[in-house]
């Protein structure tokens, strides 16, 4: 026997590793609308199997805890059982020798705190309090509940125009979302259990790119004579306007600038969303008969009170178009601008010339990446300063990768301290202080704290603040609309407390968020305004969705879109992303597991095709 051997994996170990990976993927597709106590019991069983068996609390305690949870689930438990669960879990947490044990107990304790009412419901009423809805994962995760498997199936059959029409039933921005949606639908895609999520956005983009001109939706309902004012022509406002118009109401949009689109136009650079694609959506919305007042600022050209008097209902969707200041020394004066301002200037045709200059962007969100890449296209050398780690950035990973690939320098774990200016006031440098990753905050991201390192200087000509947007909601606050700091307080039906007939949605309610959430806000408001006005106009689309195809499911790679070569694409503002080829799109579309037909999908079918 040798004194030492190189460890080699046995077949069992290899297969178990493979199973671990499978379970990880599977868990990533897990939904939250399941019985939480049952899930906690299942997690606990898994944790217990990971125990080495050395120590008492872990070896014995986790099993006993499991039996107690099983008692709760099968109606044998009393409130004393709940106390015993708590006592046992606390003891295991306090006494287990290693993380396998105390981590398991922490998981149970977190559940006891987080869904205690469900434990009590099981004990006292013998049933789960959660309305378990194993719907179609992608549809459930899409804030606007777009019928994704339906349009994916239509793409697979080459029926691109029908796919666009089906999307419009829930979302009048198929083109914009085909280019820039953050695709929350993919997060719980059941295909992850097999290999990887379906590339839903790429398929939507393929549909809109290939659909040709899709005739606008017909207004199916007779005119109601009701008038609705929409304040702000961004995605939320235009979505509400679109649906309310096809319901037969008369809608007027009051838009502060001279173009519609809101953040889709002024917040997203054209290299991500070409203007003509955005205009496709907006023209289709306007074709239904929506009236628009451009260069009209509510609060200046008319008051909210006046709108309330003139209209039967008002929808506020003013977005989040001002920016948050860095609040550091030297910020005031030339050479420091906001990301929002840069993007707006470029959209308005005032493209700055940054040739030979260095631009330093502060922030880690999508807007920061947009500002950085736009500055790059204006000729600058670009740094991005961010106080946390790259993985903590809120920007989409592909945006971060695109930004790095294009040549922007990422300076992470550094917080801006002050801006240095020379005697003439010209910006010379951004002084930054190195940070260290601290304790995790509630969102699971580490809080950055000052490191015991000296300050550093980043020489720069221009500083761009991209640490968040704010909402110009003063006028509304003064008009009896309740505000939480600067956000408008609306409930989950988009209503505003004590303001009957006034609704709000989009970034001005959620704070800066995604386009699809804004669209959902507009959709929800449209439905509830319709009911408020005394109607129940049903929105549906008469499209024959292809039946599921019987086929074998073999694991297969996900088809990803690729980007144009970086040193070429930075010379223009044209689309950076290359669409899927037809071959790729067809293959990708057939990867869809058609959860609308399998699993619990058919159970909801009748309840899905209209709203």
């Amino acid at each position, binding site marked *: 026997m040798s004194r030492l051997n190189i460890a080699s994996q046995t077949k069992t170990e290899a297969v178990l590793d493979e199973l671990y990976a499978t379970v990880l993927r599977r868990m990533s597709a897990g939904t939250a609308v399941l019985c939480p106590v*049952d899930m906690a019991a299942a997690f606990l069983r898994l944790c217990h199997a990971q125990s080495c068996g050395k120590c008492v609390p872990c070896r014995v305690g986790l099993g006993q805890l499991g039996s107690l949870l099983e008692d709760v689930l099968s109606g044998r438990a009393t409130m004393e059982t709940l106390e015993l669960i708590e006592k046992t879990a606390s003891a295991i947490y306090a006494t287990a020798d290693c993380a396998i044990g105390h981590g398991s107990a922490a998981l149970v304790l977190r559940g006891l705190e987080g869904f205690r009412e469900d434990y009590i419901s099981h004990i006292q009423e013998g049933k789960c309090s959660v309305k378990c809805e*194993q719907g179609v994962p992608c549809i459930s995760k899409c804030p606007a509940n777009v019928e994704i498997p339906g349009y994916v199936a239509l793409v697979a059959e080459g029926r691109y125009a029908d796919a666009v029409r089906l999307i419009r039933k829930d979302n009048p921005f198929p083109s914009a979302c085909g280019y820039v949606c953050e695709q929350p639908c993919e997060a719980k895609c059941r295909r992850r259990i097999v290999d990887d999520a379906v590339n839903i956005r790429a398929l939507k983009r393929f549909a809109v790119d290939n659909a040709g001109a899709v005739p606008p939706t017909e207004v199916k309902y007779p005119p109601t004579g009701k008038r609705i004012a929409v304040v702000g022509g961004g995605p939320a406002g235009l979505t509400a306007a679109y649906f309310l118009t096809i319901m037969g109401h008369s809608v007027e949009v009051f838009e502060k600038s001279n173009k519609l689109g809101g953040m889709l136009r002024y917040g997203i650079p054209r290299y991500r969303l070409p203007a003509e694609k955005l205009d496709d959506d907006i023209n289709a919305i306007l074709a239904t008969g929506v009236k628009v007042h451009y260069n009209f600022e509510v609060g200046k050209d008319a008051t909210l009170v006046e709108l309330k008097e003139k209209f039967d209902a008002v929808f506020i969707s003013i977005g989040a178009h001002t920016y948050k200041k860095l609040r550091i020394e030297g910020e005031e004066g030339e050479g420091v601008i906001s990301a929002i301002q840069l993007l707006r200037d470029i959209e308005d045709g005032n493209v700055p010339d940054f040739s030979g200059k260095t631009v330093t962007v502060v922030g880690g969100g999508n807007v920061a990446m947009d500002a950085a890449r736009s500055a790059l296209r204006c000729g600058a050398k670009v740094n991005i300063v961010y106080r946390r780690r790259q993985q903590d950035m809120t920007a989409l990973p592909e945006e971060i990768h695109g930004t790095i690939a294009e040549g922007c320098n990422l300076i992470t774990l550094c917080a801006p301290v002050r801006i240095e200016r020379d005697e003439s006031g010209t910006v010379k440098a951004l002084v930054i202080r190195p940070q260290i990753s601290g304790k995790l905050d509630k969102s699971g991201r580490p809080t950055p704290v000052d490191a015991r390192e000296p300050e550093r200087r980043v020489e720069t000509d221009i500083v761009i603040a991209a640490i968040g947007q704010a909402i110009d909601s003063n006028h509304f606050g003064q008009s009896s609309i309740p505000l939480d700091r600067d956000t408008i307080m609306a409930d989950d039906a988009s209503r505003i407390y004590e303001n009957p007939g006034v609704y709000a949605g989009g970034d001005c309610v959620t704070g800066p968020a995604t386009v699809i959430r804004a669209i959902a806000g507009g959709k929800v408001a449209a439905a509830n305004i319709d009911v408020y006005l005394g109607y129940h106009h049903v929105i549906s689309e008469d499209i024959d969705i292809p039946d*599921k195809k019987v086929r074998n499911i073999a694991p297969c790679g996900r088809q990803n879109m690729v980007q144009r070569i970086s040193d070429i694409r930075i010379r223009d503002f044209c689309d950076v992303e290359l669409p899927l080829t037809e071959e790729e799109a067809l293959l990708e579309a057939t990867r869809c597991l058609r959860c609308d037909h399998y699993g619990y999908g*058919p159970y909801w079918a009748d309840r899905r095709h209209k709203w």
Partner: protein
Amino acid sequence: MVNITIDGRAVSVAEGTSILDAARSIGVDLPTLCYLKGYNDIGACRVCLVEVKGIERLVASCNTAVAEGMDILTNSPRVREARKVNVQLILSQHDSNCATCVRSGSCQLQSVANDLGIFSLDYEKNIPKNNWPMDYPFIRHESKCIKCMRCIQVCSNMQNVGIWDSNSSGSHTTIGVSRGRTIWNSDCTLCGQCITHCPVGALRERDDTDKVFDALADPERITVVQIAPAVRAAWGESLGLSREQATVNRLAAALRKMGFNYIYDTNFTADLTIMEEGREFLDRLQNRDKHNFPMFTSCCPGWIRYIKSHYPDMVDQLSTAKSPQQMFGAVAKDYLAEKLGVDPSRIFSISIMPCTAKKGEAALPTMQYHEDCPDVDVVLTTREVDRMIRAEHINAAALAEEEFDTPMGVGTGAAVIFGATGGVMEAALRSVYYLVEGKNPDADAFENVRGMDGWREAEYTVGGVRVRVAVANGLGNAHKLIEALRKGEVSYDFVEIMACPGGCAGGGGQPITPDTELAEERGKTLYGLDKSAATRFSHENPAVAAFYEYYKDEYHAKRLHKLLHTDHKAWDIPMSPYMKEE
């Protein structure tokens, strides 16, 4: 057309046909449990599986459409074994004490298991406990539920009520009353369609046969039984009688053999209902400004519960006439008690109904003409009376037909068709015509209100006045009709609504033949009886005339309205939570 091969046989079927329908079209019958055509194709039980050559896993035939070139094996060894495993898994959680189950003989799980030759289980039995209020008009056995979800779909999609919903997830998934309510606190209409569409014995009517056996054995009790129109078209089905054998007079003979003292016909009070409701309708027409239209029929208790819980603002539009069952009950304890010279409390009034909602109706506080003395003491469904006949070991087929007793055993053809959708409307129109025109119409003049469409309409001219009528059957269709009325898309003068598809013929208390809808066939039997009836007009019923004559004097005339009419607002039912939202 799509060309496929099923068990080696080439077949060509229409595009979109399911594998199941394709197989059945050539006589290959696949077993199913959860599948319910038109309502449930969720593929949950995994029993109708087939093998498609080239496809690795088995395919549910109920919800998979055929595709060109499919080569299908419906009963390969692999299919058979998988099916047996799944049925055994279902059985491992099913209380299969078939000997004590009302559905023994009409249970789809029993027949599927028997057909597959499952005579032992490879799995440990793990049967969930029952938790149901046993005094409710119907009973749910958790221990028998196979979670096929048919009840949910039928209640939501056929009836638009939504009492049932699935609860929890994973291994704890089950069916319960939706929105966390208890059944007593729900707006259940008691229509019983979930019962007749349950593949097993998880849902059944509350069994009230013992109460009747006790009354029959009590010499102090005078048992008076009424037989509803639709019962005569169905009672023989589960006893193995042909439609020709299963006459109402043979049922009367069986009841007499059991010892019932007086055997009467609900047809008598169905005719009475027509007289009351017909006059009420004419009165409303003459005072149009005082009433909202249309007037709705009031004989279906499921419908009454539905309108009260969904459209309480329209309850005034219901006819105030009691249902034939309740008119009968009230009249039996007043008119008959006087005729027999007995105290009403000695009369034990039993009704045989195609309906589970009737159990709820008889228990209403408003249905007691004499204090503390329900007008109808016990309601038996057709299924329960069949069970009593079996319990008494009566060979019904061998009995000679016998007549009803008098005076409440006389009915007309107009009353018989109460049991079919459109029948009340047609019977009412026959008499309304007579009351206005002073002469009889042709008895079949209003036959275009007949049919099986969920929502039908017709227009007639009576006495120079245009009368627009509509008929809906199934509460889902009633919902559509009312929504259209409220939106002003349609307008009618008189509307008949029956909660069950096909009317009482398809009632929730009728015998169950799995996956077979018999309402239309039973309706035909009823229309046949009408056609051959001696008289086909309610106003020509001599017993009804005699009744009105008896109640003419001052003492009786005062009683008449309370005997025959009711206040639909004098009792409460919870609002539908789904209506509150809108």
